[in-house]
């Protein structure tokens, strides 16, 4: 990885978080990963100076306690400081409503956890390609 992109994972499932870290480790990728367990934690860490270094990318689960993914997206897009964040939804929900709502909030992609292969290898491959090909806002 040529550029140090920080990954913010907002997911209440520790196993999924561990799976991602494990996959990174397995691929010998040293990108820093910040883990938040819900939307509120995610916002806190985003608003904290040097909480999540830029350039950064958010992997967002939808179904979470306290503040779910869609609520988090609403707050994010209303915040002038945060509205440009690149967000990938990473969820088990295959509901049309969730998908449409997520894209209404300008997510970069909607990813089903079931479809990214064991240990999120496909997901990491996609993210790798993404940050190497796509220009980031900052």
């Amino acid at each position, binding site marked *: 990885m040529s550029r140090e992109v920080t990954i913010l994972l907002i997911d209440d499932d520790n196993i999924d978080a561990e*799976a991602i870290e494990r996959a990174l480790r397995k691929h010998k990728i040293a990108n820093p990963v910040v883990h938040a367990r819900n939307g509120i934690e995610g916002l806190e860490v985003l608003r904290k100076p040097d909480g999540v270094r830029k350039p950064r990318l958010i992997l967002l689960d939808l179904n979470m306690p306290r503040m779910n993914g869609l609520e988090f997206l609403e707050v994010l897009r209303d915040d002038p400081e945060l509205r440009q964040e690149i967000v990938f939804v990473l*969820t088990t*929900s*295959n*509901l049309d409503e969730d998908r449409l709502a997520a894209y209404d909030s300008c997510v970069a992609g909607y990813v089903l956890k079931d479809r990214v292969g064991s240990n999120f290898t496909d997901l990491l491959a996609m993210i790798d390609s993404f940050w190497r090909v796509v220009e980031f806002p900052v």
Partner: protein
Amino acid sequence: MVLGSPYQKRTFEIFRLIIFGLLLVCSAWWLARIAADWRWEHHPVHALVEGLGSFAAITAACLILILHRFKAVPPSYTWVVAALAGMGILDGFHAALHAGPLFVWLHSTAEFVGGLLFLGILIPAHLPLASSAKVPLVTTLGCLLLGICSMVFPDSLPAMQRGGQFSGTAQLLNVTGGVSFLVAAIAFAWNVSLDNGNRRLFASHCLLFGVSGIIFEQSQLWDGAWWLWHGMRFLAYGCVFGLVMQRLYQMQVDLAGSHESMQSAVAERSEQLQEIIAESQRNEAMYRKLAEEYEGRSTEMERMQLATLNIAEDANDERERADNTSTELREVNAELDQFAYVASHDLKAPLRAIENLALWIHEDANDVLPDESKRHLETLQQRIIRMRALLDDLLAYSRAGRKRGTYGSFETREITHNVVELIGPPVNIDVVVSDSLPMIESFPVPFELVMRNLVSNAVKHMGRDEGKIEISSEEEKSYIAFSVSDDGPGIPADCRERVFEMFQTLNPRDEIEGTGMGLAIVRKVIDAEGGKIMVEDSESGGARFTFWWPRVSRRERAENES
């Protein structure tokens, strides 16, 4: 003798008048001849005759004036009244005198004035003089003045007698008056505006006066001819008087009649009024009855309205209940949705964690695990996969029939071809889609779902790498019967109902990977579309699934649910 036109009739009457007049003149002439020496000087009789005549004339004049007030006389009445009044006045003076020059003078002037005034009826009706109301008054005053003057200044009068004979002046006055009367008689006879009685009478009146004026020339004082023309004059006056009296009587009779008819009319009217009153009373009674009835009706109406309201309320309650039911149904559906969501996420999330953990154990510790544990770990991973499939199909079942796509006409043949292509059956399994598959009007998504499940079922359960699957259709009245037949192992008769239930499989799950949800989903969708499905043996011993799909689907369901 038949008289046609009024003209002929009047000509005849004039002819009769002339004959009558000539007869009178001749009889007077004859009387004078045979009784030339007869004299009857009797002043009281003469005074009586002249007085009565005068009275009759004046009375008749007054009566005509009265009649005129009732419009019972023709417009020329003024001259008749004037003539009668003038003659009556002068004859009155005459009647009061002893025989002498004044006596003859007054008689002669009466004849003269009367004759001339009677000629007044000849004045054309359109001239104002013809019907002037002043004529009688002027004449009356003039005659009174003449009479008084004659009495006061008898000496200044012209001589009336000369040697026992009437003088020329007297004869001139009388003959002129007589001729005027005769002309007036003819005029009366000719007058169309009078009725027959009046015309004849006035004509006779004038004829008598005219003849008496002519005869005067032949007569001498107190002789036969003299008395004759006095009688004629008396008769003439009597005629007019009688006529007027008759008219008055007639008028009175008419009045009485009209009074009577008026009374009868009044009686009739009051009878009618009584009837009207009675009827109005009847009507009133009827109205009252109607009003009562109406009141009854309106009470009934109110009751009915109340009943209607009650019914409406009941209907409202019913609707509320139905609403409640549908609300409950919606709630149940929502719960089902929630359940599906839970199944898809909350149950799958821990399953995913388990899967990951198993994988990590396998990756990290496979080398150190005993063989038995390794085998357990593999089984664990297989069950995890099946569990996920079950959850996926459960989710699919709960959402089956929900997505329907856009209603419209579509080719079932085309959709079926696409389905087969998507499934991609093994090369040796031959899938034949009949060309007879028709076009239907329905929702494409449920149809495709059913077809996909049936075809993939047939492929999956073929039990070998080769085979034949036939898809055909048969058109029935309002349904299309689609069949998917295979030549696989078939379905035992006692299991044919069970295959459509949830989580039912014929084979152990380890042999053929399946959740047992496919046919349950198919039946659920077909039920929702108003069709049905059954399974039987195919000709080749395999299974034949036949489902009936409505030729035209109900679209309300989608509208209701959307």
